[in-house]
């Protein structure tokens, strides 16, 4: 495994806060610096595809993924993303090939996943304690192995975004129009869904099941209010999610705050959203 220590040392020098001198904080910071931009750029498409509920369903399948790992005694760190991927693709297949509305399809999957996960977890008292970790997330316990996985995912995802951003926007605008313009709609939808499922599963570990969707859509939603073009929206979303992640981590480590990191990050992002609403209203008043 490559040594990440020089990278941590560099981070500690770039952001010379007292709280960032501890190794676990440096790991958390690096993890967030990788995760936040991925969540932000995927969030743009999630918002355009109106898939917020979909990402919620995947995050809730985390329980079931872990439970499956425990049943078959496989490392839950593998079963969780693998199961999330399966659920995501399953929903997409059903959505594309059935006449049910997409929120109905997702609702059914959602309930099945949560019920299955809870059923397994409830059998075993010791597992119930783990439940809290998934509900609230814990970026401070991220390992070097997970960071390397995030790095690999980061490379794949940013390449995908660079190649497919325009086509994904097109499909989000109107799939029929995109199809008529020879955009391969199905391929893009499946690839996007698969990558989204993986991101969501990593994000569950950072901010918890309850707040995964927020990490995806709040920066994108704020960016929508601030941006005047699709290109600018991308950069706004990046800026908002990165600044929220760093600020959230630092605030949560302060003595006066001592809050959960994931929740603090989302609060900062929601602050951005509030500002963006005010900015959007002001500019509307000016043009009106």
């Amino acid at each position, binding site marked *: 495994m490559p040594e990440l220590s020089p990278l941590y040392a560099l981070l500690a020098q770039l952001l010379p806060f007292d709280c960032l001198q501890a190794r676990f904080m440096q790991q958390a910071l690096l993890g967030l610096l990788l995760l936040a931009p991925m969540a932000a750029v995927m969030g743009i498409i999630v918002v355009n595809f109106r898939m917020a509920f979909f990402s919620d369903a995947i995050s809730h399948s985390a329980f079931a993924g872990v439970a499956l790992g425990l049943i078959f005694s496989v490392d839950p760190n593998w079963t969780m993303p693998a199961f999330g991927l399966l659920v995501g693709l399953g929903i997409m297949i059903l959505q594309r090939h059935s006449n049910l509305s997409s929120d109905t399809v997702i609702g059914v999957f959602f309930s099945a996943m949560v019920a299955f996960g809870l059923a397994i977890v409830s059998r075993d008292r010791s597992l119930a304690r783990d439940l809290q970790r998934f509900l609230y997330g814990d970026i401070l316990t991220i390992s070097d192995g997970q960071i390397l996985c995030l790095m690999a995912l980061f490379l794949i995802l940013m390449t995908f975004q660079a190649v497919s951003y325009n086509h994904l926007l097109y499909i989000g605008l109107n799939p029929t129009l995109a199809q008529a313009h020879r955009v391969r709609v199905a391929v893009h939808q499946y690839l996007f869904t698969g990558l989204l499922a993986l991101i969501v599963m990593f994000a569950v570990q950072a901010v918890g099941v309850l707040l995964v969707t927020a990490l995806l859509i709040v920066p994108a939603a704020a960016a929508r209010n601030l941006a*005047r073009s699709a290109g600018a929206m991308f950069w706004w979303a990046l800026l908002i999610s990165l600044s929220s992640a760093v600020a959230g981590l630092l605030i949560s480590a302060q003595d006066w705050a001592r809050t959960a990191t994931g929740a603090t990050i989302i609060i900062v992002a929601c602050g951005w959203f509030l500002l963006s609403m005010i900015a959007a209203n002001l500019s509307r008043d000016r043009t009106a």
Partner: protein
Amino acid sequence: MSRSCAPTSTSWNKRLAATEAFPVYQPIEAAVRFEEVTVEYDGISILDRVSATVPKGSCTAIIGPNGAGKTTLLLALLGEISYQGRIHTSPNGTRIGYVPQRLSFDRGMPLTVSEFLAMGFQKKPLWLGIHPKLQDLSREALTLVKAEHLAGRKIGALSGGELQRVLLALALRQEPDLLVLDEPSAGVDFRGELIFCELLDTLRHATGLTQLMVSHDLATVTHHATHVICLNRKVAAEGPPRQTLTSENLTAIFGMHMGLVSSRSMPENLAVCSAPCCQERPDA
């Protein structure tokens, strides 16, 4: 509902034949040929063995009442839905430009008209900017549809007529051989519609493209179409507007009230259209 409709009744044939000579039938080159196209949805037949031809270079209108399967036929042509039967297009590939009826999209999405016109063509992601060459091409297409002032606007802030012109610009940017329009006059005011139709006529004459549009607006059809397909789940009639838009056919596809309205005004009044766009109609 099953109704068998003769393409043109004998009485009309006699009347028309008395006033003008019928053009000698010539096999026409087809841009699209629908062959026995059947679409069923949950056991309900939407299109029933539809066979029709869209002549090359024509302005073909598909008319029919709501629920007649007009949009379904277009979607089958675009490959959006599965169907039985066959749809033949040009063997060496047809580029289809599609202008949807009402683009349902998220109006809050920050997307400028220039980005909208570039995103289907540009490989480089939009967040790295739009290629200057594509900017120029987009501007040309917008100028063609008299919408060059809209380039910097957000697409969600456009009016119905403006959006339709931008959609047409997008379709034209694909240099289509076949331009498919679903209800081009829906959601557009009268003036906007006139501009839109004249624009299409000019473009068709200039580029030789084939235009296929769906409409339930008979005024648009009589003014602009050179070929009409009357559809009500089946093809009731097909041919040049004068021979197709007979009161019998219209009654057959639209039902009683339509027949009552059009029995006196069709088809004699077709010839007195004074709009400039109608004067050059090949069959007029």
